[in-house]
């Protein structure tokens, strides 16, 4: 089953454990600047929103890459970067409308979310389930259920 990361900002407290886990997994150290997932805060912290690559089916980054360094892991549905083939031209960073593929000045390559081989560390680290790893075809079910519950109670929000 294809899974994708599902983010529920209402549950996010802005703790940044996801950024810590991601950087640790990929770089071996705690360094949010190198995390592939980032949390953004709005209105003095009223809302915190983690954001990362949504693993587009027709990926801009993949199409923009002149060396074919970006490829698909068909099991995961993840778009991965081959460090060997990547020349650091950054065309992908321009192409991605979401900004979720980023140039790494230390390695000279680009980094992006790779779903951690099917065991996303941000999901494990999140203390509130603001990030979950769900059936890619049913990520909306949680919200539908919440609204259905409201209706069942006869209360509209």
């Amino acid at each position, binding site marked *: 089953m294809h899974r994708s990361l599902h983010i529920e900002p*209402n549950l996010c*407290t*802005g*703790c*940044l*454990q996801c950024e*810590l*886990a991601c*950087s*640790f997994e990929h*770089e*071996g*150290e*705690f*360094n*949010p*600047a*190198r995390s592939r997932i980032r949390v953004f805060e709005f*209105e*003095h*912290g*009223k809302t*915190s929103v983690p954001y990362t690559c949504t693993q587009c089916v027709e990926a801009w980054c993949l199409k923009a890459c002149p060396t074919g360094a970006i490829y698909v892991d068909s099991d995961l549905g993840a778009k991965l970067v081959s460090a060997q083939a990547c020349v650091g031209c950054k065309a992908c960073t321009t192409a991605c409308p979401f900004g979720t593929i980023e140039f790494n000045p230390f390695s000279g390559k680009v980094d992006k979310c790779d779903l951690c081989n099917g065991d996303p560390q941000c999901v494990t*680290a999140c*203390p*509130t389930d603001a990030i979950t790893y769900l059936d890619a075809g049913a990520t909306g079910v949680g919200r539908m259920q919440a609204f259905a519950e409201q209706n069942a109670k006869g209360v509209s929000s």
Partner: protein
Amino acid sequence: MSWQGKVLRVNLTRGDVTPEPLNMEWANDYIGERGLGTKYLWENMDPKVDAMSPDNVLIFATGPLTGTNASTSGRYAVLTKGPLTGAIACSNSGGKFGAELKYAGYDLLIVEGSSEKPVYLLIEGDEISLQSAEKVWGKTVWETDEWIKKQHHNPMLKIATIGVAGERGVRYAAIVNDLHRAAGRSGVGAVMGSKNLKAVAVRGTCGVQVKDPKRFMQVTNEMKNLLAEDVGGLTKYGTNAMMDTMQEFGGLPTRNFQEVQFSGYDKVDARAMLKTDETGHRNLLTNKACFGCTIACGRIAHIHKDHFTIQNRKEYWHASGGLEYETAFAFGPVIGVDDIDACTFAGYLMNEHGMDPISFGVTLAAAMELFEMGVITTDDTDGVPLNFGNAEALTVMSEKTGKQEGFGQVLGLGSRLMCQKYGHPELSMTVKGQEFAGYDSRALQGMGLGYATGNRGACHLKHDTFEVDMDDQSGEGKADPCKASQDWTAAVDSSGLCMFTMGAWGAPEFAAQLDAGCEGEWTAERLLESGERIWNLERMFNLAAGLTCADDTLPERLLNDPAPSGTAKGRVNELDKMLPEYYSLRGWSEQGEPTSETLTRLGLG
């Protein structure tokens, strides 16, 4: 490993910045943050200097675990000589600033001297500079945060800044980071202002590494699970969950500590924050975490748009930091106010202008008592009647003090100087010049001992006798738990982690995390010993600054006027019985000075 091994020394007089290696010998003996900062302060300044002079040193200190994935790893401390107290100041804060300083590659930032013109320190990776602050001098904390990020096109900067209160030397001015977290007490913001340093803005891109990555991950995950089982009401209700407990217990300081219970408590407590009114408005919006924290005790709230405070002031219609216990106590019971929107607005102003809500509220309480006694009148107070319970007095004076206008300039002195000025020093509810937090010493005896002997003045966070104080309202057997918890808390405050984990984690749990992360062997015993060393070094600083055992005392009101109600009704604080036992347990003389034996044992002799 864990420590970055580097300190940044900034000399504002000369205008230069110099990285230097971290003294690892000191790190081994004092850990980091509070302990290490104290050692650096001790070695870098004369405790006798005036706190507002260029000779005072200001240190921002992270702990070895700051910036790791241990839960609550966002803590850092600001250390200096406090203008409010003339004693050592060690003010702890959360948010994101501390972790960012680690990612910039520094364990400590040491600021010396003072700048001729207002500046801010900018750290972007390895690019460090002192920038002119002329465009932001006079601006609020929130304006400054926004301006600096825009100016450098860097929304990732984390900024610790002062407001006008700090610029103008309000004795309890705070340093606010990430908009609504603060190094709040003892006037550390005023020291920053005296140095013409408006802000420190940091963006770091190097990582924090740990000694044994695999073990570290295992241990921190284990500890997170333990913590999740033991957060009490912190996540759901925040610290303000304590207000109704304090009310029922009878230790809730009311109307400048004249009483210990407040009938309006349920209008400003945690439950009130969760009530939805007829218009559909609810004070609390959500909870919020500091960096790395899986508890998330922070509150995000908003004020009712029709409330008199912000009715025509759209700029305050946004959400921001909500009431914590201390803010609620300082803007509620201690001044007799029961208007949650007024209290929340005053809280906003504290963050916006950079002030300590505890000291402000208790200072205002003293002013209200002076007013009700007729010692000061509306002629003195810009026409504002300072009666207990007057919510408008709270919000108007919060703003005046933040901007240093009118009577706000008197309030900005703190209650000790203000009450002296008006000839009633006994109305200042302080120890060593610092105002009490929301726990009355007649009801919580060990707390009273902790207040009296605390190295930074009246502080509720440097010891933990809550359990024994609740179970036994007498002063019996309080000296030992007070001393032991003071030492233990000093170690916790030096680790980079938050003391709100202390319910779930003891010394073994902290040691396990430090041992997996830091070079060297870290055991529970070593932590406790370090804590005792740190406590004694702080004491030595104060003795060198000129404080004596005469300063280890409580106001007359708490020693002589019995608690009028509650479970401790009829009691006064039994400091005279507890203090001698405390000194003896500490290995100090009857004059409260560490004996040479004690100093040698701790490696301080």
